[in-house]
């Protein structure tokens, strides 16, 4: 592909995925968080914000079960006073929210969120109308199809902790400071098991590229399942054991990585006021909020890609080919991917409103004594299975 169409397509994909999917998804994850928590606690949750038709002389307001609540929240956060306390270290204070939100969004660059999308049925008539030749062929639905794949995810995702640490340090106040310390020590104890837990996958597949990992799962069955689509297979059944262990360790580590309950020690509202974002207000606080939920979505995307077959659903074709049907299946693949992500996000929320927070020492113990060793042993189990059961 030439440079200019490549740049245009990449920019369009980035814009579409961030402004078309991730940001709406973040705001509606917040809505889902409030709604699900309410229902778990036998409440109703936000159900008021709608269209105030009575202001324009109509008889009734439209409530839509409060579905417009995220928009009201966003408007509120944007028009609030942006207060910078006098005692903060201004440079890092301003830098921290950006560092909190950017890594989560960058992580999504390497995740394949769909098969291919062939936009030619729309673009060719459009090009003819303008008198230009517009035909891109099938466009792969991943922004950057890099071979380091998962390593890129780990590298960028762990930068996210700098946002929290800098916020905690620059605020020059004890509670944010404690939150920052907790965040950094939590990261040290969980990054290890996060990285080690996925090595069995690479041993099995022999590739770090996330698109290739999805392709492998399409031919050999999802890694979380003990069977494949094409017949019974001893290797697959035996490899299921380390894969499940990998999945559990990886998911728990992802909870810690995204600062979700039961590992939300850096925030810990009951102990640390608001944790690292105590001194923040308005849009800077909203950026932390956005970063946290975007990190949740990015983490869920990685879990879906690694274990749940990415955009693949059995017996659904991908978007390769030409014509409207291919375009339709390409869109269905994208919808399947984000459907799976949404299910995992529900799981994240469900866990948050069930479990109490771990104590600081319990978290260290869990990270260093258990998950690190389990992930390490798991590598040897997977390697042993692969050694004694050649294809």
């Amino acid at each position, binding site marked *: 592909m030439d440079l200019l169409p490549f740049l245009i397509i990449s920019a369009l994909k980035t814009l579409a995925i961030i402004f078309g999917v991730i940001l709406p998804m973040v705001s509606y994850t917040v809505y889902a968080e409030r709604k699900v928590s309410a*229902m*778990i606690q*036998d409440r109703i949750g936000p159900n008021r914000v709608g269209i105030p038709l009575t202001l324009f002389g109509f008889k009734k307001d439209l409530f839509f079960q409060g579905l417009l609540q995220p928009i009201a929240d966003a408007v509120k956060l944007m028009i609030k006073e942006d207060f910078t306390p006098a005692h903060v270290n201004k440079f890092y204070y301003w830098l921290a929210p950006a560092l909190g939100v950017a890594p989560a969004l960058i992580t999504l660059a390497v995740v394949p969120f769909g098969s291919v999308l062939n936009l030619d049925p729309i673009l060719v008539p459009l090009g003819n109308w303008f008198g230009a030749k517009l035909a891109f062929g099938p466009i792969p639905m991943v922004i950057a199809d890099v071979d380091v794949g998962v390593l890129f995810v780990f590298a960028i995702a762990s930068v996210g902790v700098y946002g929290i640490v800098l916020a905690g340090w620059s605020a020059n106040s004890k509670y944010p400071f404690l939150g920052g310390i907790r965040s950094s020590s939590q990261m040290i104890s969980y990054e290890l098991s996060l990285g080690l837990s996925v090595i069995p996958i690479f041993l099995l597949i022999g590739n770090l590229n996330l698109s290739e990992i999805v392709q492998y799962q399409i031919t050999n069955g999802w890694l979380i399942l003990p069977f494949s689509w094409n017949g019974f297979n001893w290797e697959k059944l035996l490899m299921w054991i380390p894969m499940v262990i990998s999945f559990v360790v990886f998911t728990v580590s992802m909870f810690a990585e995204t600062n979700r309950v039961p590992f939300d020690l850096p925030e810990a509202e009951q102990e640390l006021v608001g944790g690292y974002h105590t001194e923040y207000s308005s849009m800077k606080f909203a950026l932390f909020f956005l970063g946290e939920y975007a990190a949740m979505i990015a983490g869920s995307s990685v879990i879906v890609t690694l274990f749940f077959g990415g955009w693949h659903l059995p017996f659904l074709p991908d978007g390769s080919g030409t014509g409207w049907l291919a375009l339709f299946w390409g869109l269905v693949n994208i919808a399947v991917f984000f459907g799976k992500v949404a299910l995992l996000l529900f799981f994240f929320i469900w866990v948050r409103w*069930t479990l109490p927070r771990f104590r600081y020492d319990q978290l260290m113990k869990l990270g260093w004594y258990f998950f690190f060793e389990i992930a390490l042993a798991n590598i040897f189990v997977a390697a042993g299975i692969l050694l004694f059961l050649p294809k």
Partner: protein
Amino acid sequence: MAYTVSRPKLTVSERMYFPAIASGLLITIKHFFKMLSGKREILMQYPEEKWDSHLPEHYRGAPTLVKDEHGRERCVACQLCEFICPPRAITITPGELPAESKFAKVEKYPEEFKIDMIRCIYCGLCEEVCPEQAIFLRKDYAITGLSRAEMVHDKKKLYELGGTMNGLVHKWNPLK
């Protein structure tokens, strides 16, 4: 002396975390689906549905002034409520009754009676201390206003909220 709290002895499944976590998740999802299917109807949509008709007789809402059955104001501006009020929400300006009145030089009357509803803590001491049975806590609880001045109830507002109270109210010694 140090007191040793014995830690509970955990079974293997409890130490594994996961069975306990799974059972916890089961409990919460049960509540979730019960709420989703609408089987739980213990909630009240507040501004549309109110608990007002179920408020008990002894409910302590906003303090108000009452008139007797002849439309006379009961308050004699003795200022006992002003003195007992813990947050000092009540301000009374006592005034003399006009000379032609039957009770001139005998009783006073409140020229102005103000209760600052931002300060009021709804304790009901004013009602308890009043010897003339003039001040009562009624059932209004949603006291709102757009400014501090609006939140100060003056005499007119207090009588408007209080209305009339007929006869003797046995507030200290209820009739057996």
